[in-house]
């Protein structure tokens, strides 16, 4: 993040939902703030799995892979190379 510039929110995508949060916080803190159980998702950055202690970068997109079976009719698939 550039000092003095307005920070761009980080985006978290889970199925067909999109959330924006301030950069700088950890993925885990963002999930808890959004009411998403950290146990129920796997965060990915650029198609790679990351741990939830990673800090969200300015303007980046984190895709969340749902791990609980069920409740996903027609949802977009966040895995790399899959239709979105």
């Amino acid at each position, binding site marked *: 993040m550039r000092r003095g510039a307005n920070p761009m929110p980080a985006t978290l995508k889970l199925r067909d939902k999109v959330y924006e949060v301030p950069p700088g916080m950890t993925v885990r803190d963002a999930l*808890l703030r959004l009411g998403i*159980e*950290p146990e129920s998702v*796997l965060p990915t950055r650029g198609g790679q799995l990351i*741990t939830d202690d990673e800090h969200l970068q300015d303007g980046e997109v984190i895709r969340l*892979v749902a791990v*609980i079976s*069920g409740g996903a009719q027609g949802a977009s698939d966040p895995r790399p190379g899959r239709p979105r």
Partner: protein
Amino acid sequence: MKCRSCGQTAAINMRHHKLALCREHYLGWIPEQTERFIHKYDMFTRDDRVLVAVSGGKDSLALWDVLTRLGYSADGLYIGLGIDGGIGYSAESQRLAQAFADANRLQLQVVDVAELEGASIPDAARLTHRGRDKPCSVCGLTKRHIMNRVARDGGYDVLATGHNLDDEAATLFGNTLTWSTGYLARQGPVLPAMAGGLARKVKPFCRLYERETAAYALLRGIDYIYDECPFAVGATSIDHKETLNRLEAARPGAKLAFYLSFLEAKRNGAFPQELGPSSALLPCPRCGQPTSAPEACAFCRTWDKVRARRSALQEPTTP
């Protein structure tokens, strides 16, 4: 966070184990753990022929992958249920199961319910009014019957399913809420074979979190069906999983402790065998599979009803 084994950037952190691992070490850790559970619960050996029930989902494909990597002789069984749900669910899951088998040169047996019995699972549920608006009851009954029949007819020693810890803990939670002692008595990593032809059933992933099996599938590049069965939307078992995940977030290891404490209580006699499956099962006169029913088993009775209803609907009406 760093990998405990090599210090590289970790791909996954398992708070309940206080263990973070990179991709490479995680892909070694999962088979090691699975092997440990196979031995601990005396599931099968490398001399046994294993039939893996494959749905095209992450758990069953990951299990098939792990067993193959460990050197077990494992064939797959895919059951075509005829579920569309607006997303071509069955067609896509079969395509993914077959693609996995082909890519790994594995043997996949496909049984299509509509070809075999004359109706898809959703049609059978509608015709019998079983399970109200959801076909899950007919589906479970039919899958159990077909899995058992293929295991028996194919001479397999054991039937393996991809049930993970979250599945097991959610089932346990549901059965505990209702004190269903009969179900509690028969739940476990192994369901022994029974006289009369019920195959031995095992769950090698029963101590792996759903998050861990999903991470394994992703890191191995296994292409699995991301959408779950359309009829699973709103299922009670998913509510139970979410409830248990809230516990897990507050107390890492809560789900595993719940399941392992149950298994220990069971070993200590909390759920005596007589509460479990009856030893007085008799062969169904129609299909030969064991049943507690005095005549035909539930599978035969259900599908007889489906065929009768279909015939009645297809008969020309009298002018």
